[in-house]
Each structure stands twice: as C-alpha cells, then as structure tokens.
C-alpha cells in the first residue's frame, strides 16, 4: 500500500471539485468492486526510499506513486488528470495530510494511453497516468 498515495487520496478528497472530476473516487491498486462511475483514479506505489540516521531512525521518506485516471473520453480523463495536477501544484510544500507530514510533493511524468488490452480494438476507457513524487515524515 502506498503511504503517499493514501495521503494524495485524503488530500484530493477534501478539495473542491472532487466529486465533479473524480465521481468514481480514488482507490488503491484497482477501483472498488461495482464502481460504474467515471472518471475514477487508482494509485500504486512505484518506489520508496528512506533516509536514515546512524540510529536507524528514518528522517524522511521519498516515494513515487502513480495515479492512474480512467475516463470514458479523452477529454474527461484529461480534465481529471489536470485537476489532480493543479491541486497538488496549488499546495506543494509543508503540510500535514492525515498522519503524514509532507515536506513537498510534485507532479512529474504524465502518460496517456487508450489501449488497455493491447488488442487493437477501440476501448471504452481512456487512461492518463500521473506520477507524483513526495518526501514525507511519518
């Protein structure tokens, strides 16, 4: 489970426009069973690095999390991805989210795709993956 991803979800869920841009919500790994609302987003941890003292205590952790937005149309998926990016960018620095103290977080790569199954057929889902990198103290 992505610790940073949880914080991103907590943070975004409290932002204005959440129900508009992500009516399907944000879930870890895959969307909730039975969810029919789009766009929705899922998150997964890509990497996590800890900085330690000689005592072994963790001073800070840097994590890269991938948030994947799924929408029925390219424009809806893009609008939701843009909304996520704008909310992260709007509050990039020191803050407490849930139980985490976020030193900073930022949006890095963004990748679009519409071939989920790689079978050449048109599919109903348009996907945008946004990578968020953040450093936090638990």
């Amino acid at each position, binding site marked *: 489970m992505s610790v940073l991803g949880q914080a991103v979800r907590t943070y975004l869920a409290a932002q204005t426009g959440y129900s508009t841009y992500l009516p399907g919500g944000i879930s870890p790994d895959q969307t909730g069973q039975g969810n029919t609302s789009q766009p929705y987003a899922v998150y997964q941890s890509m990497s996590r*690095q800890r*900085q*330690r*003292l*000689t*005592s*072994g205590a963790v*001073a*800070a952790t*840097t994590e890269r999390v991938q948030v994947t937005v799924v929408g029925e149309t390219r424009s809806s998926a893009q609008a939701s991805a843009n909304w996520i990016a704008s909310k992260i960018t709007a509050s990039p620095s020191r803050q407490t989210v849930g139980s985490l103290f976020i030193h900073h977080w930022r949006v890095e790569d963004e990748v679009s795709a519409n071939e989920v199954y790689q079978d050449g057929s048109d599919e109903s889902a348009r996907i945008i993956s946004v990578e968020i*990198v953040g*450093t936090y103290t638990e």
Partner: protein
Amino acid sequence: MAYVLPSGTTATLTDVGGASSITLNVTSITGATRSQAMAEITGLGDSVLKRIPARIDPGTVSFECYLDDTATATNHLTVIKARQTNKTQTVLNLDLPGSTIDDLLDYTGYIMEVTDPQIALGDDVLRFTVTMQVSA
C-alpha cells in the same frame, strides 16, 4: 570479531561540567585522526636520522546532522553555533550498541567549524557539518 554498525547508535553533545545535553540527529561521523608528532634528535655525527615521539595531536572529529527545525530558535544548528560562540568545552559521546564499548569513542573539545546546509531543491534532508577540535 568485526564490528558492524548496527541500528541504535546515538550521539550526544554535553557541556563539560554542565547538565546541558542534546541528542544529535547524526547521519554520519568522521572520526578523529590522532597523530604523534616526531622530534628529530639527529646529531651532527650521526649517519642516520633519529626521531623520537613528541606530543600527540588528538585531531578533529566531524559529524553531519540533519536540520531539525521543529523549533526554529532552538534547533541543533542554533544550539551548536551558540556553543561555538560561547567557546563551550563540549563532550561528544557516541553510544554504540553493545555493552562494553560505550566509552570507546568520546571526544572532548571545542566546536571549530559549523557548515550551514547546502540549499538545493531536492528530496534529501538538509544536513550541516560540524567540526570539533579535540582538546584532550
């Protein structure tokens, strides 16, 4: 048996003769080089240089801490700079995990250099380096 640094090592700075003590947020410690000066006593008639041990220089020890800014006025950087300003004789005590080596690496001396953290955008914690002249 070789000693591999385990988790649990702590470093404290304490005033000599005082109660003031802080536990440092140490990320690394570079130990002192204790060197022995040699005095030359070669006579004019000697064909080989002769040297004998003279005084010992206890050297300097430096350690790197991360910047703990939970209280801006009293963070460790400020505290250590105050020790430098006040020329406070200080004991750096390393408590390595293990029952018989707690006093192995103790240094008594004065804060000689304090390097402010390098400021660059990144994910690393901010660190500053302190160099202490060992005086005894």
